[in-house]
């Protein structure tokens, strides 16, 4: 018997496999396909204060081993998520829930985190700092250490649950951003969000995506994500959820060896709805193959 369970700031996950925000709806949609209680945790769709329709379509463009999305944080708003979506997920799912929060101002982050902190069914708050800051010419919060620190401090003040800050990879030095999270009092770090990307329609001689530039993710970004997890592990002491291009149990093991305590699966769920289930099912045999008795042994082991 191998041990696949891990712990994130005291929240116990029966395995480190977590569907990533935005690629798994509010979770319950997948309960028709397989028993979602096999999952370590679920990170639900990014939520803002007000309901949002998001960006115009087309929002999706295919790439080699990945896709660009420009959904634009479509969600029903924090109140509907608390009153309808989370209870609906709870009816079919009893493991940890990670609530992913977005905002376009510090006030909005604070408002949403304060509200979600009161929800007993939420175990971890994941703050997505990749959103554009409306008070700063639309530049992403996550690209400046001082902004990341400010958001972190502000949400930590109004929360008691573990707060993970989710980082954008579109920065010059990920370690300075990670250190800002630590400075601000974050309990953990999730990374990476999508990489900015672009595809053109050759017939129309124009971008495929209505919003032109979107977020690139999927298998192709795995080495980039792994590198960033590696760097952040060396820079800070916080637990890490590794995200980006994960598609197999081997990828999970590799992310953990680079420093992740848990691993999120995003785009792969869209093309293989059973992706997380397949990964969880093959995890024990992959662990045996690499002589891993307990996953906790391998977190960051590649740095030794």
């Amino acid at each position: 018997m191998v041990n696949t369970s891990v712990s994130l700031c005291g929240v116990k996950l029966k395995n480190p496999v977590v569907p990533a925000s935005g690629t798994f709806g509010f979770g319950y949609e997948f309960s028709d396909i397989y028993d979602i209680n096999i999952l370590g945790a679920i990170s639900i769709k990014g939520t803002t204060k007000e309901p949002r329709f998001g960006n115009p379509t087309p929002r999706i463009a295919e790439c080699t081993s990945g896709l660009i999305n420009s959904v634009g944080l479509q969600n029903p708003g924090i109140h509907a998520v608390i009153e309808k979506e989370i209870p609906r997920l709870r009816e079919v799912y009893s493991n940890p829930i990670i609530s992913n929060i977005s905002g376009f101002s510090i006030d909005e982050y604070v408002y949403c985190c304060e509200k979600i902190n009161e929800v007993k069914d939420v175990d971890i708050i994941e703050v997505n700092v990749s959103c554009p800051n409306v008070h700063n010419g639309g530049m992403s919060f996550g690209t400046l250490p001082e902004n990341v620190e400010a958001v972190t401090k502000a949400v930590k003040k109004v929360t008691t649950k573990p707060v993970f800050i989710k980082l954008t990879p579109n920065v010059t030095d990920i370690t300075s951003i990670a250190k800002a999270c630590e400075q601000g009092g974050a309990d953990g770090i999730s990374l990476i969000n999508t990489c900015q990307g672009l595809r053109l329609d050759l017939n129309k001689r124009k971008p495929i995506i209505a919003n032109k530039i979107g977020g690139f993710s999927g298998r192709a970004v795995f080495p980039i994500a792994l590198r960033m997890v590696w760097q952040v592990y060396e820079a800070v002491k916080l637990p890490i959820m590794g995200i980006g291009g994960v598609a197999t149990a081997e990828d999970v093991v590799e992310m953990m060896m680079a420093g992740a305590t848990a691993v999120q699966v995003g785009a792969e769920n869209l093309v293989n709805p059973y992706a997380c289930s397949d990964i969880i099912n093959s995890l024990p045999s992959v662990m045996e193959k690499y002589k891993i008795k307990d996953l906790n042994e391998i977190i960051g082991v590649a740095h030794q």
Partner: protein
Amino acid sequence: MKQSYLKVLTNEKLTANVCKMTLMGDVSAIERPGQFVNIAIDGLFLRRPISVCDVEDNVLTIIYKVVGKGTEKMSYMKGGEILDILTGLGNGYFTDLSGEKPLLVGGGVGVPPMYKLCKELIKEGKEPTVILGFNTKSEVFYENEFKALGVTVFVTTVDGSYGIKGFVTDAIKEVGEYTYLYTCGPEPMLKALYNAVTTSGQFSFEERMGCGFGACMGCSCKTKYGNKRICKDGPVLVKEEIIW
């Protein structure tokens, strides 16, 4: 929704760039005409959404136009290939609202879903009339298949090289009385029909998709009944809810 591994039985050209493929396997998740399947293709990241043209017992028929990498790869399949397909996606057409004499209008590769729908309506004792719209004679397909079902079929071509010259809307006056509209085709055609028909109806839309089963919000559209996902709450919308 169900993930099925279907075996390609036949794959033949209907016109220069439109192919018909039949596949065998577990298609039990397909409940209604107008639903679609999402096909994984080796070497490509996203699946390709294609409408159900027909389904009988364990055989699925699809008709696709070769427009890019995925459909080109499909066109080279010879039979015997096993494809990973998500089946039974989308809402599909509801036949209970059709009345006695529904009008079915398909444009280009919007024609295929009309076929299974036509069969279902006939089975329910209704009398469908069918209009098939194409650009030119060499692009016409499935006229005879519809005629074999015993229904009245009008074909239009934009250049007048076959059938009625003009758009599908030019054929409506030939139809006489009809009770309801079912349609699928390019958006300008849908819009023209929306303005031309006097009855209610169901319109099938296309959008670029991430997942095809409701998880990613890649395919959203606004309707009078709220935001909908074309892949899950659609692709079929009722006339009353459409916002152009």
